C-alpha cells in the first residue's frame, strides 16, 4: 500500500555557482495518515525548507513529493500551516482572523460559527473572540493562530516551530492543547522543532536531521501512550527516548 505522503530523494540547493548553498537533502520520508511526525534538528539544518517543499510552497531542486500518489507541483491547499511568527493580521479580531482562513478559501462563514466557538473554547480563548491580536499575550496569539490553522479541518497540519518564541510554561500548556486537538481530529501533522523533549512528547515518530546540509540520520518511533501528560514525561521510557536522541546530536557536536 502506498503511503499518504511520500517524499523521494528530495533536495534543495539555494543560489547558483559560487553562492550555492546546499540546504537540504537528498532525503526520503514516508508518512501515514494521522501520524504526528516531528522533524527534529539543529537550527539551519533545512528542516523548515523541507516542510515548505512538502507543502508545495517552495520548489525543490530535485526529487519529488507525492500526496496519495499525486505529485505536488504548486502550493497544496488542503493544509493548515503555522509558523513561529504567527499569521494573525492586526486589523482583525481573533474571530476575524479565524474567519480569514475561511474567507480566503471561499467557504461560507455562517456554517462555521459554532465550530469557531468550539475551537476557541478548546484552547480557552472563547472570551477573547472579539479582541485584537495585539491585546493578547504571545502564548494566546499562538493559540489563536492554531485555531486559524485548524478551522477548515485540514487533513495535513504543518507546524514550523510554532512554540519557538514562547516561555517554558506557556509552551507546556500549548503542547497539551495541540495534543488534545490532534487526538480528537487526527490530522496528519508535520511538526518542525529543535526541542527534543517537545518532539518526544508530541510525536508518534521523530525524524532526526543532521546539521546542514540536512539529511536523515535516523527515525525513532515513540511508543508511549497518549495523552502524554506530566506522568508520562517523568517515566523512564520517556527519559530514555530523550537521552538517546541527545546522544545522536552530541555525536554531531550540536550539543
Amino acid at each position, binding site marked *: 500500500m502506498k503511503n499518504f505522503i511520500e517524499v523521494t530523494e528530495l533536495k534543495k540547493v539555494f543560489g547558483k555557482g559560487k553562492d550555492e548553498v546546499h540546504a537540504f537533502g537528498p532525503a526520503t520520508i514516508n508518512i501515514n495518515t494521522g501520524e504526528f511526525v516531528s522533524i527534529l534538528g539543529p537550527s539551519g539544518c533545512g528542516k523548515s525548507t523541507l516542510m515548505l517543499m512538502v507543502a508545495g510552497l517552495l520548489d525543490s531542486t530535485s526529487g519529488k513529493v507525492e500526496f496519495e500518489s499525486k505529485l505536488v507541483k504548486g502550493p497544496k491547499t488542503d493544509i493548515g500551516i503555522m509558523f513561529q511568527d504567527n499569521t494573525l493580521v492586526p486589523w482583525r479580531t481573533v474571530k476575524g482572523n479565524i474567519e480569514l482562513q475561511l474567507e480566503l478559501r471561499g467557504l461560507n462563514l455562517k456554517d462555521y460559527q459554532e465550530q469557531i466557538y468550539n475551537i476557541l473554547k478548546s484552547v480557552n480563548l472563547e472570551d477573547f473572540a472579539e479582541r485584537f491580536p*495585539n491585546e493578547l499575550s504571545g502564548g494566546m496569539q499562538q493559540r489563536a493562530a492554531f485555531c486559524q490553522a485548524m478551522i477548515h479541518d485540514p487533513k495535513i497540519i504543518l507546524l514550523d516551530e510554532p512554540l519557538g518564541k514562547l516561555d517554558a510554561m506557556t509552551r507546556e500548556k500549548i503542547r497539551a492543547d495541540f495534543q488534545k486537538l490532534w487526538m480528537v481530529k487526527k490530522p496528519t501533522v508535520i511538526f518542525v522543532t529543535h526541542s527534543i523533549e517537545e518532539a518526544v512528547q508530541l510525536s508518534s515518530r521523530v525524524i532526526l536531521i543532521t546539521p546542514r546540509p540536512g539529511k536523515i540520520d535516523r527515525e525513532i518511533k515513540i511508543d508511549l501512550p497518549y495523552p502524554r501528560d506530566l506522568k508520562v514525561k517523568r517515566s523512564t521510557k520517556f527519559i530514555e527516548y530523550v537521552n538517546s536522541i541527545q546522544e545522536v546530536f552530541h555525536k554531531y557536536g550540536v550539543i
Partner: protein
Amino acid sequence: MKKFIKWIFSGWMLILFFVGFFLFWEYSIPLFDIPRYILPAPSEIVLKGSADLDKLIYYTGVTALETVLGYIIALILGLGFGIAISFSSILRRTLYPFFVSIEMTPKIAFAPLFISWFGFGLMPKVIIVVLVCFFPIVLNAILAFNSLSNELTLFYQSTGASRLKTFFTIRLPAALPQCFVGFKYAAINATVGATIAEFIGSDKGLGFYISIVTGNMRPDLAFAGIFFLTLLGLSVFGFVTMMEKILIPWHISMKRINK
C-alpha cells in the same frame, strides 16, 4: 473621566504656551523698538488683516483648489504606479529606479519651466503640486506593498485564494499604514508646492498675495496671508490624519499600545 481631565490639562498647557508666545511677541515690539515694516505686532496683523478679509478668503479658496486638486491627482497616480510597480518585475527594474533618481531632484526647480510652458492659470500650479506630492506617495506605496511578511505570503498561498481576493483581504490592508506615511508627507508638501508656484507666476492666490504685499512693505498683511496658509495646511493634514483614523483604526491603537 480621568482621561478627559488629563486631556483638558494637556490642552491648557498648549493654549498657555501660545498665549505666552503671542504676548511676548506683542510686547517685545515696543520694548525692543522694532519698526513695524520689519515685524508687526499680532494685534496689528489681526486689525489690518481683517480689513483685507474678503480678498484673503477668496485667495485661500484659490490656493486650496490648487492644493486639493493636485493632491488628489498625485494620490491616484502615486497609488496606481505604486501598486503597478510592486506587482510587475519589469516596472520594478525600469520605472522604480527612474523614480528613485528623480526623487533626488528638487521638484520645485521645475516650477519656472511649467509656468513658461502652461502660463499663469490653474494648470501649472496643479502640476507642480502633483509633482511634489507624487514621489513620497509612490515610493512609500512601493515600500508598503513589498513588505508583507513571508509568513503571511505563505499562508495565503496555502489557501489557494485568487490574487484579487488576496489583494483586497490581505495585501491592501497590510500596506495602508506605510501608504499613509507617504500621504501625510505629501499633505505637508502640497501647500508648499502651491505657494511657491504662486510666488513664481500668478495673479491670484495666497502665495501671490504674500509676494505682492511684501513688495509693498506690508509685513502685517504678509503675516495675515501666512496665517491663512497655515490654516489651509493644517486642514489638509488634519483631513488626511482623520482618514487614517477612520480607515486603519487598528493601526492607531497599536501605536498607542506600543508607546
